[in-house]
């Protein structure tokens, strides 16, 4: 499956291009699932090769019945610059990717994530061969499911 990057707003434009009022990001539409039948609404999750994990806002986890803080797997999550950290709580969830695939991953849940969700290396890139193509405008992201024998 190949999708063009999707445009999201940007309040402070890139100084290299002050006219740009959008940021184009690779994303796929997903739902989260937990247990039997509990599924989240659909949402756009950003494909982020810089993130070691798949991470979602904690509200999404609660909606599918996860007791977010009830886990012994936590991690202090920070951004690319120093600043306040937030605790990431890790739980096993199913991710329904674009109605075509279901993967089961250990994902992080964070209260103060600035985006709805992130598809990171462990869980997403370990299940999909992911290709970013910036030779087109807008750029595209393509995924191909693989299984490690």
């Amino acid at each position, binding site marked *: 499956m190949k999708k*063009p990057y*999707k*445009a*999201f*707003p*940007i*309040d*402070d434009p*890139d100084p290299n291009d002050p006219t740009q*009022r*959008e*940021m184009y990001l690779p994303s796929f*539409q997903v739902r989260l699932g937990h247990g039997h039948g509990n599924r*989240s*609404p*659909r*949402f*756009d999750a*950003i494909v*982020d090769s810089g*993130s070691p994990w798949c*991470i979602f*806002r904690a*509200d*999404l986890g609660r*909606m599918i019945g996860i007791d977010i803080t009830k886990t012994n797997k936590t991690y202090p*999550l*920070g*951004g*690319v610059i120093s600043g306040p950290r*937030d605790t990431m709580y890790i739980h096993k969830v199913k991710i329904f990717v674009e109605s075509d695939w279901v993967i089961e991953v250990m994902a992080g849940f*964070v209260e*103060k*994530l*600035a*985006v*709805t969700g*992130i598809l990171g290396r462990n869980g997403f890139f370990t299940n999909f061969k992911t290709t970013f193509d910036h030779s087109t405008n*807008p750029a595209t992201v393509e995924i191909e499911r693989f299984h490690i024998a």
Partner: protein
Amino acid sequence: MLTKNNQLAHLLTGAARNCWLALTEDETRIVGKGDTLEKAVQEAQKNGVEDPVVIWSPKEWYYGVYC
């Protein structure tokens, strides 16, 4: 220029911030909002959209993923 690919950015620029938004399936209209995910979805359903697409609208849209 507004195109199919950037209309979501256009829609979100003027939308409420620091809350959940619920959108139509084609992401062209906001049909619900709330300080909780549940409120946004319920409002969408009252507006006739049973299975909305949801998105967290942050206080500020910027190049980053953590608040």
